[in-house]
């Protein structure tokens, strides 16, 4: 009886929260916003190059031998770093890059790009040429 009542209450509260539309306001990532988030998530890791997803729902940065991944989840973001070589070799199909994050807390990330690997990603990050999409070097 009590359990059934609690279940009903849970349903009512979820519906009410959905009706209120009070999630954090989200807008597609800009280059500056992506950099600010990366700085929060990965303090002390300099960004050699950054690519913002074409839909603005995430970003990927190179920091030395690491790829820093930022991905939108609901009205927040989830961040992980993986080896850069692994990011470059990740599966890319129909404009979506699928990254294996090797973590049960966040197993995979999907980022939309025009092309992958980005042009110039193989050479030293410092002299990368502009890639297709919204890549910027710092």
């Amino acid at each position, binding site marked *: 009886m009590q359990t059934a009542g609690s279940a009903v209450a849970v349903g009512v509260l979820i519906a009410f929260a959905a009706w209120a539309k009070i999630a*954090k306001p989200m807008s597609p990532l800009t280059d500056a916003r992506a950099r600010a988030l990366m700085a929060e998530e990965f303090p002390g890791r300099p960004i050699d190059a950054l690519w913002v997803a074409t839909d603005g729902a995430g970003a990927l940065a190179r920091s030395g031998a690491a790829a820093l991944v930022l991905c939108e989840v609901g009205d927040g973001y989830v961040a992980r770093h993986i080896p850069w070589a692994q990011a470059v070799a990740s599966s890319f199909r129909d404009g979506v890059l699928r990254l294996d994050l090797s973590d049960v807390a966040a197993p995979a990330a999907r980022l939309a790009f025009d092309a992958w690997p980005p042009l110039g990603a193989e050479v030293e990050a410092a002299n990368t040429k502009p890639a297709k999409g919204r890549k910027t070097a710092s």
Partner: protein
Amino acid sequence: MIHAPFDPVTLAVPFFVLAVILEIALARFRVTPSNYETRDTMASLSMGFGSQIAGLLTAGAAFAATIWVWEHRIFTVPFTAWWGWVAIFFLEDLTYYWFHRLSHERRFWWAAHVNHHSSQHYNLSTALRQTWTGGVSGTWALWLPLAFFGFSPAQIAIQKGISLVYQFWIHTEAIKRMPAWFEAVFNTPSHHRVHHARNPRYLDRNYAGILIIWDRMFGTFQPELDEEKCRYGIVKNLGDFNVLRAAFHEWIGIGKDLLSARSPREVAGYLFGPPGWSPDGSRETSATLRAQWEAERKAG
């Protein structure tokens, strides 16, 4: 007295529901700044609902152990003595502080507690995001000394319930600060926001249940600073809103690490080291994140 004549948590459920409705309504009409994401709310409330069920699995064993210890008690605290309630108020809250600190500083117990912190939101629904695996993690044993001193199982259960109910209302961004005297003595929304924040400076701080005095005494107090806005969640946030992931991800992580362990030292480290412990120190712990932040602050 063995069986509590009432359960504070059950009595408070209607208040929980009304308070969540009020918080959402106030945010909807822009009176207060709370945020609710529907799938996050669904996960939090489902975890609260599920914890009630999961708790039943181990409640019997925990209760039986409490009764057994109480039967071997050294004193007897009468259920109706006023001084008994004053004493258990402080002693239970001190127990809670150490339970909570253990739950953050040692991975085995963090695995049971992490789900409470796994939301990137901080609202009244977050308060209900309760553990499913607390019973099997055995932390209820920390309350057994109270029974050994002579507090009855009923009195312990009631005081634990009062603490849980108290901690509900502090999970909100709707209240900025309480009066200074209140902030000095009691756990408040401001203090507990810090506890839920993942900013390096705020990690592993403010373990209080009802009274913040324990954090002040044991050196884990950190006031909320206007210049450092809380960012909520865990160091490595969850990739989706799956409640099973929230409930079990750290346990699975422990299991995977144990399979790769090459020595008893590694087994011990993976189980009872601080969350993020690794044999070569390649993963981040609260301590390394805090040290890195300190170094950058000094350099910058």
